[in-house]
């Protein structure tokens, strides 16, 4: 269980692809380096898209946790 403090939470459940990723990108842009953002998504594409974008954009994926019908992504803005 992580004790990371969440700076911002985005509930993107029900949003179709690529909505959750776009919401995350927007939140990252508005955040400070070190901030931790949580995204909740029911979109299947997010499972591969969000980690792929985080790797490309060189942020840090702290956690991906499957929940009841959705996934929870926890991301730290690294730069």
């Amino acid at each position, binding site marked *: 269980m992580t004790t990371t403090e969440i700076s911002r939470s985005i509930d993107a459940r029900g949003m*179709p692809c690529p909505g959750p*990723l776009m919401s995350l990108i927007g939140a990252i842009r508005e955040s400070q380096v070190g901030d931790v953002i949580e995204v909740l998504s029911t979109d299947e594409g997010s499972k591969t898209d969000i980690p792929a974008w985080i790797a490309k954009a060189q942020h840090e994926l702290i956690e991906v946790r499957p929940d009841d019908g959705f996934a929870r992504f926890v991301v730290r803005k690294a730069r």
Partner: protein
Amino acid sequence: MSDTFSLALFSGTDDKLQAAAVLTVGAAAMGRDVNVFLQYWALDAFRADRIHGVSPEAGPEGAVAMRDQGKMHWSELLRQAKDIGQVRVYACSDSMEMFHITTDDLDPLIDGVWGVASFFAEADGPVTFI
């Protein structure tokens, strides 16, 4: 490998424009430059007075599917793509003449007018046609 995603759009139906917009936003998110070249009915769909609608070709079912699934309209996806990355949208000059379109008629998403050679001058890799 080229980092530029070159997209030539010629169809003005919403299914194809939606698919093109999703590809564009994905490419932009992943750091690729995107050049979109609008020809014929795709250009017609970018007229400022009709860009936000669902084209007649989509039919009633298409309009319902777009609304019920909460899909973001392709024009809004393209706006997002331009916001996050290097995405340029050009009108084909021949199509401008064919439809008697002037730059004043076009949505602000469009960055300018190109001849086809200008598109290929920038397209240093494969071109995707939709």
